[in-house]
């Protein structure tokens, strides 16, 4: 996570990137996302996977603040 944050900062894309991470996290928190996931991969995400996904993205967003 630190390496990603450092590379983003070096590229001067910090604000745009942080906004995208937050927008993706909001999208992943909706039930529609699990339906898209199931349709593309033939599997459904477990609740714990969604929680882990959101947690990692929110941590990354904090690193970039």
């Amino acid at each position: 996570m630190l390496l990603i944050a450092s590379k983003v900062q070096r590229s001067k894309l910090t604000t745009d990137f942080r906004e995208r991470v937050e927008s993706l996290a909001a999208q992943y928190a909706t039930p529609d996302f699990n339906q898209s996931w199931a349709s593309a991969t033939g599997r459904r995400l477990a609740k714990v996977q969604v929680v882990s996904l959101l947690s990692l993205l929110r941590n990354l967003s904090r690193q970039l603040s």
Partner: protein
Amino acid sequence: MDPIKTERESLRDLKAILAETKAYNIKFLVMGGWAVTAYVRRHRYTKDIDLVTSKALEGPIQGILKRLGYDVSNRTFGLAAEKQKGSIDLKVHISIGRILDESRTGKALAYPIPEEAYEQAPLLRITSYHPECRPYEFQVPILPLEDLFIAKVLPLGRENDVLDVASLVINRGEASTCS
């Protein structure tokens, strides 16, 4: 479109592009959907070829793509190529020096790929979605995980990128660079 034939042709073409460009000492990194299949095995069907290179040697690359049956055009990000052959429909995008996201109207974002990425790139096996294509899998230099993650997060409104970011986080989130 026949997805199995298309996936097989994409793997063959990618292998041919990488083999033929060796003679010109051009270093490529695979990015896009094929790169995701290297980090997250067989997570979804992908077909188009996305590459980044540090050298602007459009001439030799164009010649190779044309020999493989592609129509080639110059774009802001580098080269775009397209091939339609019967039930096969393939696209190749070659970015030069940076990944350019043009999904925001009037505001393109550029993510430069540093020279060190070519040195640090892992050599990984790209994996096919269809079992029939497994004999055509091979190892290629892949865009480092954190650069791929950044490249996949940037575009707006592309459903496959949204799925790829989730796959990378869920499957590789504990890898040292993502955790």
